[in-house]
């Protein structure tokens, strides 16, 4: 658990100075805070003993100092004491405030560095890394987990230093001022400490479990909200309410169980506090009479007693908090320690010669542990400038096949060549600049249409953007928007229709002027006529670009130079439309199931 925390601590970076300063300043604050009751006790003694400097007063030097300046005026001594004490309080205040500021700088800077580190790390992740974590879990790790760790960090450099110091100083002071009376703490402290630890240890596992349950409960609400149409269609409102009621009751019961254990905390603390008070009252007062201690020390004992117990209480809270955030720290470290699985080769090739693609004995599986290969024994040779259609049922690994070309995944067996060279020899950026993929699950980002298009080419001119949009048949609808190319796209592209989104994504990919263009089911929401127009534009305008089209509809691929029929991760057949329609059973079946019917938007 502490290994992770230590690793994270190393990301404090340039804020290290603040992270170190904070505990130091806090310690000074604590010293001041502990000295104040110390001197107050002296002052009270001085007053109580009718302005006689007794043996019990430790700061005789101070009294004689004041008396030497203003002799014979005991009130001046009292005034001097008060000024001294107020100065100490102000010093303590200043230290406290400064520590508050350095602590803010350190913890916010730490969180910033951590976020940057995490974000950069995820940016460098390969598809395989991303799949492993899942996007939602990555988002939580970068947001909630970082916030929690930041909180803990703040706790550690400030309170976690303050409390033990306060504890030690107060005990020290208590013994100096109270002598044998302070022995009560020797009894009370272990009781409280063990009590608190015992309670925390008992309650924590229950809390951990119940928080998980609680999260699951909230997840089930979310599921219900999203699926409300289904719930209502099947008239399952009561069923859902019952199910939820049981789960909620269950969570509540667990919480009560844990809370009831925690409920010992407060009385335990009170018990110890009361014990100290009673002890001091009962025996302290007698000790005063006996002359063992003086009244000022009696008050100091009470003050230190409170401080000691409060700092113990804080310690147990910190303990709980750190253990809880250790979970977050672990999850963050998992991301930070993950190695990007796809890296640049040592001396990469920066130039992709042409759009030739060759698959040589390629087999692929998504993870080492997977039993089945997603692709097996694929051999495929595509000449630069060819148009290739890929067709096959759901799960036949069409997307998998093309994702190997821009090295989104690496082959498990065999090699993929682009422009005659193994993809693993290229500089990744150069390779992906030459191979443009329009992904099946595509995303537009919040920003204007132009902003989105510029992903393809940062320096694209308006004319270039219009050209690619015309090619992708996107220009026609963009022109109908009031703001044309400056139309703002909402996050996730929710304010354009599915077909429009797909066309914008194609335009964006075209702007890269790639040597190879891959459309992964990218026109499924586009009507057949527009689909055909896009393909026609491709044939005329970018004849030298290799085009790979994955499609559900036969009409999208039938005029391709080459059609690959995939079935269950294997190439079933390669040929032209007229060849396949004669010889290939799967192709024929797909063709017939569509019987030249279209889809429309």
């Amino acid at each position: 658990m502490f290994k992770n925390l230590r690793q994270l601590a190393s990301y404090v970076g340039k804020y290290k100075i603040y992270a170190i300063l904070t505990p130091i300043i806090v310690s000074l604050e604590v010293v001041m805070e502990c000295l104040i009751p110390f001197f107050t006790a002296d002052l009270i003694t001085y007053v109580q003993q009718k302005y006689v400097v007794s043996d019990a007063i430790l700061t005789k030097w101070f009294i004689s100092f004041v008396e030497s300046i203003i002799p014979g005026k005991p009130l001046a001594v009292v005034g001097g004491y008060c000024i001294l004490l107020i100065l100490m309080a102000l010093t303590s205040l200043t230290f406290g405030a400064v520590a508050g500021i350095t602590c803010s700088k350190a913890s916010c800077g730490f969180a910033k560095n951590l976020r940057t580190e995490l974000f950069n790390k995820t940016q460098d992740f390969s598809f395989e890394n991303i799949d492993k974590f899942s996007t939602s879990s990555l988002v939580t790790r970068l947001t909630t987990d970082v916030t929690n760790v930041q909180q803990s960090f703040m706790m550690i450099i400030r309170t976690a230093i303050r409390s033990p110091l306060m504890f030690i100083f107060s005990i020290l002071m208590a013994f100096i001022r109270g002598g044998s009376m302070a022995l009560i703490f020797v009894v009370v402290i272990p009781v409280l400490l063990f009590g608190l630890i015992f309670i925390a240890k008992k309650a924590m596992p229950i809390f951990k479990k119940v928080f998980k349950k609680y999260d699951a409960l909230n997840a089930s609400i979310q599921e219900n909200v999203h699926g409300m149409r289904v719930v209502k269609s099947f008239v399952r409102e009561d069923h859902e309410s019952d199910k939820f009621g049981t789960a909620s009751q269950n969570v509540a019961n667990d919480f009560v169980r844990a809370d009831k254990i925690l409920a010992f905390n407060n009385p335990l603390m009170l018990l110890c506090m009361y014990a100290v008070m009673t002890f001091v009252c009962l025996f302290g007062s007698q000790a005063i009479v006996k002359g063992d201690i003086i009244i000022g020390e009696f008050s100091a004992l009470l003050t230190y007693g409170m401080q000691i117990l409060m700092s113990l209480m804080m310690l147990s809270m910190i303990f709980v908090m750190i253990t809880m955030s250790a979970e977050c720290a672990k999850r963050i470290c998992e991301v930070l320690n993950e190695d990007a699985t796809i890296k640049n080769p040592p001396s990469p090739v920066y130039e992709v010669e042409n759009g030739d693609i060759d698959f040589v004995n390629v087999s692929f599986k998504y993870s080492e542990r997977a039993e089945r290969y997603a692709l097996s024994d694929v051999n495929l040779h595509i000449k630069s400038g060819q148009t290739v259609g890929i067709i096959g049922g759901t799960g036949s690994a069409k997307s998998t096949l093309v994702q190997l070309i821009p090295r989104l995944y690496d082959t498990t067996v065999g090699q993929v060549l682009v422009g005659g060279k193994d993809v693993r020899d290229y500089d990744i950026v150069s390779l992906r600049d030459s191979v443009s993929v329009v992904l099946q699950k595509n995303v537009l980002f919040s920003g204007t249409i132009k902003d989105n298009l510029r992903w393809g080419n940062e320096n694209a001119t308006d004319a270039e953007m219009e050209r690619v949009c015309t090619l992708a048949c996107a220009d026609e609808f963009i022109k109908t928007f009031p703001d044309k190319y400056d139309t703002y796209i909402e996050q996730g592209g929710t304010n354009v229709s599915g077909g429009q989104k797909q066309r914008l994504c194609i335009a964006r990919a075209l702007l890269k002027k790639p040597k190879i263009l891959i459309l992964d089911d990218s026109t499924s929401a586009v009507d057949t006529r527009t689909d055909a127009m896009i393909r026609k534009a491709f044939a005329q305008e970018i004849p030298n670009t290799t085009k790979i089209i994955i499609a559900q509809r036969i009409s999208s691929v039938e005029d391709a130079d080459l059609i690959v029929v995939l079935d269950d991760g294997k190439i079933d057949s390669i040929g032209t439309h007229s060849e396949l329609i004669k010889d290939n059973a799967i192709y024929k079946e797909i063709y017939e199931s569509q019987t030249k019917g279209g889809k429309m938007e």
Partner: protein
Amino acid sequence: MSRPIANPRGPKMGRPTRKAKKGTFKRLISYVFKYYKLPFVLVLVCIGINAFATALPGIFQQKVLEAAETGLGLVSSGNSVEFALDSVVPTIVSAVAVLIVIYVLGLVAAFVQTRTMAVITQGFLHKMRTIMFGKMQRLPIKYFDTHKHGDIMSYYTNDIDTLRQLISQSLPQIITSAIILVTVLSIMLYFSLWLTLVVVFGAVLMVITSKFIGGGGAKYFIKQQQALGKCEGYIEEMINGQKVVKVFNHEPKSKEEFDRLNSQLCNDATTANKFANTLMPIINNLGHILYVLLVFTGTILYFFDVPNISFSGQDLNIATIIPFLGMSKQFTNNVSQLSQQANAIIMGLAGADRIFELIDEEPETDEGYVTLVDAKYDENGNIIEADKHTGMWAWRHPHSADGSVTYTKLEGDVRLNEVDFGYVENKIVLHDVSIYAKPGQKIAFVGATGAGKTTITNLINRFYDIADGKIRYDGININKIKKSDLRRSLGVVLQDVNLFTGTVMDNIRYGKLDATDEECIAAAKRANAHSFITMLPDGYNTVLSGNGSGLSQGQRQLISIARAAVADPPVMILDEATSSIDTRTEAIVSAGMDALMQGRTVFVIAHRLSTIKNSDVIMVLDKGRIIERGSHDDLIAQRGKYYQLYTGAFELE
């Protein structure tokens, strides 16, 4: 310290802070009272006892110290220590004895309070959650269409969390603090007016200081929340679009932009935290200064023999000043507690207000009285109610005029007469739509997104209501049919599949809760889902979570079809139900579906014309109007829009 990390979901975003309505507090308390009257009263009593136990000891300290002083006096006037002790110990012991009694009471009260409070808090939250959830189930679909799902979720997470804070901590704390304040104030006045004034002055100073710092903090805190929202929004967007980022080599740019947002956040957060972090030490040390002032004032008063004003009429002495020190701490602590909790109370009440808003939301109304019953024919061929499932259903139609009941056989005859409809006024999305679906017919809707296809199905199952009598089901005005029975008679398969956490079997059984495993498997076979389900790690017992995240979209659609199939409804609505299934599989599924739907009415919405080609009637919708209707052959012969669509692919060749 029920939950140290107050809000595990991170700080709330995008919820404007607002003031709670009047009466929210009263209502909240009345809810607590409704379920936990006795425990709540018990807690109140315990809080009272506990507060007194915390506040009263000052008196006894003073007594004990006074006794000690007397003892000291005796010693200094020449008596032996033993004599002095003997004369004061009884006073001390009796004072301490009373103190112990108070402490024990306080301890018991504290113990009972925290444990009872745990039960009340968690039980109350559970009650509120179930009330909210139950209420939510009764809300019309319109509510879910017009509210962001994230906002609805926020009721259950953020608002319930603030409510927890309010009930379990702020409320007891505020009562405790108030009692302690009053008690301590009285005790202080009992001893000395002058010293009390010093303490009150200090307390006022602290409140002003914390208002000042807290106010500045609040401003920057909002800024921090905004920056955090932006930064986390960016993280979410980029990570969700990560694969696109990779494909476009956009990593350097996104890192750059993130750096900008992150630095902004860091700046704002640092400023906000500076305020928050300095407040405590400042208040703390003001307390120390007050402490010193108190000693000083006491000494001056003592020194100059200023006449003391107090209820006790006692003179000021050291024995009085010492407990004052402790009491001043208590007083200021509780004053700052009150001012801190005031904020929490305002936030908690705003949360409660939002929760009440959800609870007060207008539920889905249902005046329907025609119900769906199992039916059979009696000897005379009349339809009568059956007490068990017969495979035949009838509408039970009671007539209020003469008290008679008639039965109409459920056939699946659905008619829409000249329906106009708009989700919002002034924006009509359906114009004059008339549809006659005879029992057993397959009716298809074709048209662009937004043409109104889904709207029609929304009206048939009364997710949205229209004027009376425009839609008739087996001749009955659907507004007269009980919504639950109407919907039970309609099976719906939607494009966006929602699966629930549970096994595959549970999900299929959702269609019919008492279905046997065999029935579910049979339904899965009909939907052509059986083969892939058996290939899942645990077959039908594979647990799905996150809306079936491990499955492909097509597989999820197949499960949702199986779910509808097991319900075995007389009328079925398929809204793009097979859009993500490849055409080969779809052909197999639809063969199964067609067999299943034999003799039942089906409404189909699909992009793919091949899906709907064999429909009895195809309606071509355009901008909310039916522009063509007829069978595939009719429409092809008409050479209209459908024909263009159907042959569109050929034209360009």
